[in-house]
């Protein structure tokens, strides 16, 4: 038992580092690792990954918010969409077969990867118009980019589309227990045209709230196994603390390049798992 706990702890540290840098919450590593390496069934793996998402979110937010990478206003506003979505997803989940979940998850990941490839040459967004709703809500902002050594000011575009994708992200989160971070990052990065680092940090920030909305339901259903979730929580917290410092010194282009292979790899793993049943 102790060996298993330590192994899960080590994987969770990696999940925390990757999740906090990419804005993916860590569920993307925890869910497949638990099901494929430790033979944990999908519902319990999802329960543990919800814990991982909350740990990544709160763990990385300590640094991201202090260093003002996170856009609090965008985060708070879009959380309306993700929390409503998460409730929708958690209830649909009880009636959908696990195999089906794997396939949805995989397809969604592949689509996100494709959207990322199209933007691979861009460091920070330029000439973005300020959407009237964004102006009204004061969503635009700025952050100090440690890799570029300068302050980056940015506008926020297409608020309605971003809000819609965020609702979808919430549904996925409630369904699969992943923070569906790839979708949150996509909503902000692709649709609202915000800088990637801000999108990632804000995605991580929001994810905790989305996951907390479903965590209560999973806990009461008995899907959060304490002995598995404990090393996940601890490892991810350590990983997220390290990752949130590393990310600020990385180039956005590099972060974007890391996204694509991770998403494609996990997508194919999930298709395989769903195929096998």
């Amino acid at each position, binding site marked *: *038992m*102790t060996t298993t*706990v330590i192994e899960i702890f080590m994987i969770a540290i990696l999940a925390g580092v990757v999740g906090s840098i990419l804005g993916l919450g860590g569920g993307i590593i925890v869910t497949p690792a638990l099901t494929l390496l430790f033979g944990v069934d999908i519902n319990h793996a999802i329960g543990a990954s919800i*814990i991982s998402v*909350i*740990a990544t*979110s*709160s*763990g990385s*937010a*300590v*640094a991201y*918010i*202090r260093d*003002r990478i*996170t856009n*609090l*206003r965008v985060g*708070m*506003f879009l*959380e*309306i969409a993700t*929390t*409503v979505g*998460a*409730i929708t997803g*958690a*209830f649909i989940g*009880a009636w959908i077969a696990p195999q089906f979940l794997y396939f949805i998850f995989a397809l969604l990941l592949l689509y996100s990867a494709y959207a990322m490839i199209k933007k691979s040459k861009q460091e920070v967004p330029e000439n973005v118009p300020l959407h009237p709703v964004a102006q009204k*809500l004061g969503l635009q902002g700025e952050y100090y980019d440690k890799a570029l050594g300068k302050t980056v000011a940015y506008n926020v575009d297409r608020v309605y589309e971003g809000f819609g994708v965020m609702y979808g992200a919430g549904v996925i989160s409630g369904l699969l227990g992943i923070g569906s971070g790839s979708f949150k990052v996509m909503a902000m990065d692709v649709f609202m045209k915000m800088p990637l680092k801000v999108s990632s940090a804000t995605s991580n920030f929001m994810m*905790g*709230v989305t*996951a*907390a*909305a*479903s*965590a*209560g*339901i999973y*806990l*009461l*259903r*008995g899907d*959060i*196994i*304490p*002995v598995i*979730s*404990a*090393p996940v*929580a*601890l490892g991810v*917290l350590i990983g997220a603390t390290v990752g949130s410092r590393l990310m600020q010194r990385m180039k956005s282009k590099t972060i974007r390049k890391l996204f694509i292979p991770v998403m494609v790899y996990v997508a194919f793993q999930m298709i395989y798992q769903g195929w096998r049943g």
Partner: protein
Amino acid sequence: MGDPNETTQNRSFEIETAISKMLRVGVMLAAAVIVIGLIQFLITGDSGYPGDTYPTNFGAIMSGLLALKSVAIIQTGLLLLILTPVFRVFISLFLFWAEKDYRYVVITAIVLIILILSFVLGKAG
């Protein structure tokens, strides 16, 4: 009044510092409780519950905690961790209020109500 932009910037910075500190306290507290429960479980090998079972409602977790059952201690830590984002929303509400940013007080209140609703719905299901 001075430059309104500058005022907003300064106040916004205070909000961020406050939320960051609050999250750090919440996260460290949760981690400490989980560590205690996990170490107790690994050393004694006793979860406090028959077989692989564990409590799945708030009351049972609390009574298990009072009886110092290792798994219930872990669950208390996990609950604290789950609550950090909820507390964060709650505190943001007061911070936006203090900043007299009523639009965001409303937005934050909506998020909080949805969160509470989801916990209630979870109990019903």
